Every structure is written in C-alpha cells, then in structure tokens.
C-alpha cells in the first residue's frame, strides 16, 4: 500500500477547454471584486484594535459569566464599552473599548475596567490586555499597507524579470483581484481586521503567486515546445497538464489550515478562515483569471513575433544537470 498512489484528484490527460470560460471567469471575478470594494466602504472592515486603537481585555470569570452584570458594572464607572461578548468558553468574556482620546486615557481605561471588574465580579481574572494608542495604530496601519504594496511591486518586478511583461501584469492584476476578494470576505464575515490579517493576506498573496507561476512556467515551456499551437489551445493544455499539481498543493495547504480554523483558538481561527478562503480564490484565479489575462495580453505578441525572443530569453536560464546546486 505504500508503493502505488491510491487515487488521483483528476484523471490524467484531461483536455478541459478552460479558455472557453474566460469571459465568464473575468465577469464573475469582476462582479465579486466590485462587490468586495462596495463592502469595503459599506459596512467597511471590522478594524481590530491594532488599527483602530483602543482596549481589548479578555476576562475569565469564576463561574459562567453574567454579561448584564458586567455591562452594568462598566456603565456605573462610566466606561463606554463598545462590546461585552462571549469569547470561546461560557466563562470567558471579551471587553472592548473604542479608541480613547489620548495615550494616557487609554492606559487609564485599562485600570478603570480592572477596578470595575474587581468590584463587580470578585475572582475574575484578566487573561489578556491589549491597549493600543492612536499614534501606534496609525503607524501599524501604514506599515501594513506598505508591506502589502511593496510585496505586490516586488512580485511584479520578479515575474517581469523571469518571464515576459504580459505574465507579470497578468499575475499582479489577478493578485489585486484576489486581495480585494479577501477584503470583501473580511467585511462580510465581520472577522476582525488586524495585523495577523495582514499576514494572512500576504500569505495568500505568496500562495496565489506561487500557483500562477507554476501555470505560467508551463506556458513558457510549451511556447518553446509547440511553436505553432495557437496561444488559446496552448494555455488550455498548460492548465490541464498542471491541474493535478494545482489541486494537490491547494489540498495540502487547505488541509494544513483546516485544523487551525477548527482548533487554533479564537485568536488564530480568523486567520485560518481567511487563509482557507484565499486558497480557494487563489487556485481558481490562476485558471480563470490569470490565464485569460495572459491570453488577451499575449494573443498576438507572445505567439508570433516574439517566439524567438521568448525562447532566447528563457534558454540561458533553463537549468541543466550541471547548473543544479
């Protein structure tokens, strides 16, 4: 049982005509991304305290938590809590305060919440305290966007350098569409958008690029191999040839993220759900978005006049046995 593969995700030698669905794919993607952009503005992202500033405290009460009592205790101290909600266990409460007017007020709020809790629920334990002032949250937000932007730019330059510009533009446009969908998913599910989510989006970016590069790589190879095949057929062939790999890797990353979503605990499961969503989007966009864009951009260029250029450009980098490390 350890020798032979047990079964395959897709049978060998499929000849699915993916490029027939190219308009459909682009239209669906455009609709989803537009909807995501709308969701981004209304209702908007549920910004976590990393980016919005404020205070979050996770509290464990001795018995099942009495939310009305805690709310009343906070109200009595004139603490404007944005939310008092259950967090995981029945005895765990998440108290959230919005951004405070100053750094000092943020710190004072922490102390006041603690005092109010001590009075109302003796024996309550503060498990976690996060307090972020306004200046820091603005900085974190800026750095998050910067990381995202520079990553996209570097991916663009890298693919441009290794492939043709049509590939790079196709990849980056697809990635932007992927990212907007992930943001729409965040806005829709109300999963908190914090630093960890920036990490999730960057990981999706990395994963999705990886997927596109594999398909593109096969396109590049087939361009050299089948000099007369129309680009449309050639892209279809390349997707079919890499289909098992595309789905296989999606499966392993999906399987790796799934336990995080189910058992990783409240603070990491949001990350994992976004990852799972991103894997599905990233995989399908390689086939239905990145490839059609390449077809549109390269229909005349890649096939006719620049075959020689592509071949010449790729040959020196083709690894030989001697070139391997």
């Amino acid at each position, binding site marked *: 049982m350890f*020798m032979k593969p*047990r079964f395959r995700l897709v049978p060998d030698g499929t000849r699915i005509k993916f490029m027939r669905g190219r308009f459909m794919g682009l239209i669906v993607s455009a609709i989803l991304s537009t909807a995501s952009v709308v969701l981004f503005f209304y209702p908007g992202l549920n910004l976590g305290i990393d980016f919005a500033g404020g205070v979050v405290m996770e509290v464990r009460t001795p018995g099942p938590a009495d939310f009305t009592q805690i709310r009343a205790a906070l109200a009595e101290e004139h603490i404007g809590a944005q939310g008092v909600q259950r967090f995981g266990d029945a005895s765990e409460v998440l108290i959230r305060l919005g951004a405070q007017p100053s750094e000092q007020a943020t710190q004072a709020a922490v102390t006041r919440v603690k005092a109010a809790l001590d009075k109302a629920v003796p024996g309550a334990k503060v498990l976690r*305290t996060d307090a972020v002032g306004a200046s820091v949250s603005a900085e974190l937000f800026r750095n998050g966007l910067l990381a995202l932007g520079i990553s996209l730019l570097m991916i663009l330059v890298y693919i441009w350098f290794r492939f043709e510009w049509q590939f790079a533009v196709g990849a980056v446009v697809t990635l932007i569409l992927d990212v907007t969908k992930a943001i729409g998913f965040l806005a829709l599910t109300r999963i908190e958008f914090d630093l960890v989510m920036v990490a999730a989006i960057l990981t999706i970016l990395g994963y999705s690029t*990886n997927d596109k590069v594999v398909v593109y790589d096969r396109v590049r190879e087939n361009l050299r191999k089948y000099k007369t095949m129309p680009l449309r057929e050639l892209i279809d062939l390349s997707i079919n040839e890499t289909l098992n790999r595309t789905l296989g890797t999606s499966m392993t990353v999906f*399987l790796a993220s799934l336990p*995080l979503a189910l058992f990783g605990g409240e603070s990491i499961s949001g990350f994992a759900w976004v990852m799972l969503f991103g894997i599905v989007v990233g995989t399908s966009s390689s086939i239905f978005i990145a490839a059609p864009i390449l077809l549109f951009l390269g229909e005349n260029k890649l096939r006719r006049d620049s075959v020689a250029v592509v071949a010449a450009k790729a040959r020196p980098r*083709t690894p030989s046995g001697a070139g391997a490390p």
Partner: protein
Amino acid sequence: MMYFSRLKTWLILGACLIGAILCVPNLLPAPAPWLPWRTVHLGLDLQGGSYLLLEVDMKAVIKERLDGLVDAVRQALRPGGIFYATLEAQPDQNRVLLRLRDASKTEAAVAALRPLISPEGPTAVPDMTVDSTPDGQILLTLSPVALKSRALGAVQQSIEIVRRRIDETGVLDPQITQQGDDRIVVQLPGVGDPERIKTLLGQTAHMTFRLVDTAANANAPGAVPPPGDDFLPMEKDTQQKIAVRKRVDVDGGDLTDARAGTNPQTGEWVVNFTFNSVGARRFADITRANVNRPFAIVLDNKVISAPRINEPITGGRGQISGSFTAGSANDLAVLLRAGALPAPLTVVEQRSVGPELGADSIRAGAMSLAIGFVLVIGFMGTFYGLFGWFANAALVVNLLLMLAIMSLLEATLTLPGMAGILLTLGMAVDANILINERIREESHNGRPPLAALEAGFTRAYSTIFDSNATAFLAHVMLFAFGSGPVRGFAVTITVGIATSLFTAWMLTRLLVSKWYTSHRPRLLPV
C-alpha cells in the same frame, strides 16, 4: 542529476544530522554554562508576559533645555545691566525669544550670550544659533544636531533608569531596547499583569527639596504665585496647595540610597534616605539656616510633605513621612534609588497575556500542528504512494531543520509563528508534488525510469525556484514591516521556505536515487 557522489551523500546526511543535533537544546537544559546552548524562545503570547511600548516625551526634554537656557540668559545679561522686555521659551520652534528694551544694546547682549553656546558632541558643532535683528530682538535656536543628540541622550538615559526600576521589582529576564528615535520596548516575560511596573515607569520621580514660602497663601481664590514661587498641590489632597520657592535647594540626584522602613515611635511607613557628600553638605547648610521653618519635599511637582525643620540635619540622612502604605513606601524607595527619568514616559501600546492563556494557546497550536501534520502526510502517502512517503520523510527533516535554524537564530516562536509552521508544512510539499507530477508525466510519455526521474527533477527545478522566490519576497516584506507576533510568523515561513528547498530538492532526490540504485525497477510507482 540522479547520481550522488559519496561526499555529496554524506554532506546531505550530515546537514540533516547537524540539524537534529541543533534541536536538542530545546529539549534539555544546558548541561554546562560554556556550551553554546541556543534554543527557540517562546513569545510572550505563548509563555505569558507583557509587551510595553513607551514613548519618551521629547517635548518635555526640549522644554526643559529651553527653560534652562532662559535661566542662563537671565544670568548672563544681569552683570552687563542689559534689560529686556520679553524673555520666553518657545518650545514649538525650539528657541528662546529675547526682546531687549534698548535696541542699541543688541550687540552687547549677543556678545554676553556668546559663551552660552557650547559645542555639542565630538563633532564640535555649536548647539545653537544666535540671531539678532536691529530692533533688539534676539533668537536663540537649538540646532537640529543638538536636538538629535539631546533626544538620543534622553532615550538612552531613560532606558538605563527603566532597567534599574524593573530590576528592583525582581522580574526575570526583562528585555529593554530602543525602537526608533523616541521609543523604548519593554518585554516582561511571565508578567501577565504589569500594573505595578506601569505605575513605576509612569513617574518621572524627580525629587527636590525646597523651602516653603510661608508669606504667600496658595489657597486663596485667584491667588497668583509671587515671582520666585510655585503653587504646588499636595500629594494627598491635590485641592490643597502650598507655596514653594522655585529655587531647588537639594536635588534627588544627590541621593545615594533610599529604603522603606517604619518609624519606631509612630509605627507608620516612611522612606529613609541618604545623601552623597555634596547633598549632605547642602542639606546641612539649608537646615542650619532655616530652623523652625517648613521645608517641602516635592516629587514630580507634588508636595509629599512639608515638615518643620526642628534642628540642623548634618549627618546626610533624612526621612520622608506622609501617609505611606508598605507598598507605596517601597515604590517610592525604588524610584529614588533608581533615579529620575529625564522626561516623562507614556505607554503607547500594551499587550499582556496571562500564563493561563499562553498555555491554552500552546495547547491549541500544538493540537492544530499535530492534526495538520497527519492530514498532510496522509494526503501525500495516499496520492503519491512511495514517492509521497519520500516526501513525507523530507517533511519531517524539514520540520527539524526549521527548528534547528530558529534555534540558531534564537528566534521567537509565537502563536502566528505556529500557524506559519503549519502553513509551511502545507507549502513545503508543493516542491515534491511538482517533482512527482513531473516524473509521472515523463514516465507516461514513455521515458524509461531513470530518464523520467532525471527529467522530472530537472524540469521541476526552475518552477520550484520561481514559485518559492515570490512567496519568500512577500514574507520578507512582512518581517520588515510587521511587528510583534506577526514577525514570528514571517520568520517561521521564510525559514521554512529555505529549508523546504533543501529537503525537497536535495534530500528527496537522494532518497529516490538510493532507492533506484538498490531496486532498479522497470516501472516507476507513479
């Protein structure tokens, strides 16, 4: 491609072995202090602890410098009989504005102020510029270099004081580092509730001993302090004010020691302090000259107590009383021993995790990791058969190597970092999937086994390289711009990508090659 020289084989296996050995320190305590015993550190979110980001109030630093400058200007102009209409610090413009009554004396004034300019730092750049206009206005502006070096000095001095204060509380292994121009990161492992430390760090603890002006009534409504006086609130009751001379007779910087104790007569908590020789002499002089007059002990512009001087205190020792509890007396003693901060510190970010929650996170992370690992291994085994198991062996080694490199770097493992390990497991097998699919394709195209293996590994190489390079770039950016636990995520993924290239490309190839030479199969099990 499929041939491995003996040397190469041993090098690959040796690298794996070294990786395994480097993981050992994580399991055992160091047997001897001289052994390099590098381990992965648990992040504060896993072991419990607090992260505080403090900001040094640079405005206060500049304002203090300008206030000092105003005093110096006043003294410099007095001997020459130069009178002025305005003399004020303008902290927003980093300057002192001086307007003379008699514009004709501008040159004389500038000459008198010249000695105030002192070279700043080893480059001997003047620390300020003096500009005058013919109508008698003189501006003393601090130079950017001076501002910068002063800010740096203030941050470094603050770090030192913060360290001393935290050391006094007995926290183990605190980490205190500078971040950016004006920030200090304080990491306190094991401290889930940093309230006391925040209180200790939240005070400048600048203590002064000054005479009380008994002639002025600070509590009269609408009273304005006479020149040379300050109306300061009492520590106990801030509504109650007291008129205190501006002139500082003895400064807290002259203290050598401070301890909490109890007064044997009343039994109340007090703080006993000792002056150094300069402080002792000045304290003796002042108390001798002012017997029977009240004397204010001022901490951060609040009067702790204003006792009457009964007799000259010449021994350089004194006692502060003022309705202390055991805790507050101890805290004050700690603050006085550690010294005053050059400027107030503000906590701009706090992340505290109690040890309970940390343990929960470790449990959740470990469980996810185990389940994810089993799922990925099961998938590879069923979908790729023997070659899948080669990949699984490489995956285990990959995990070891990741741990080894992270130990070498003494990297911090956070909860997102654990998620990163899991994702790396999922992505690391991608290289093997690419190789296996390729071998299968080549084999189905009718190539004999060895040729199929050769072609599979060769052709998959550029794909593997390109696809990993882009993911690598994205995570390097995350490390550069991320902070805290998210950086831990970036570290595990970048390290994981690097090690997976080695295990997929070298180790799996070695395993496949050894298997091929020993079995010589006529058909590949793909």
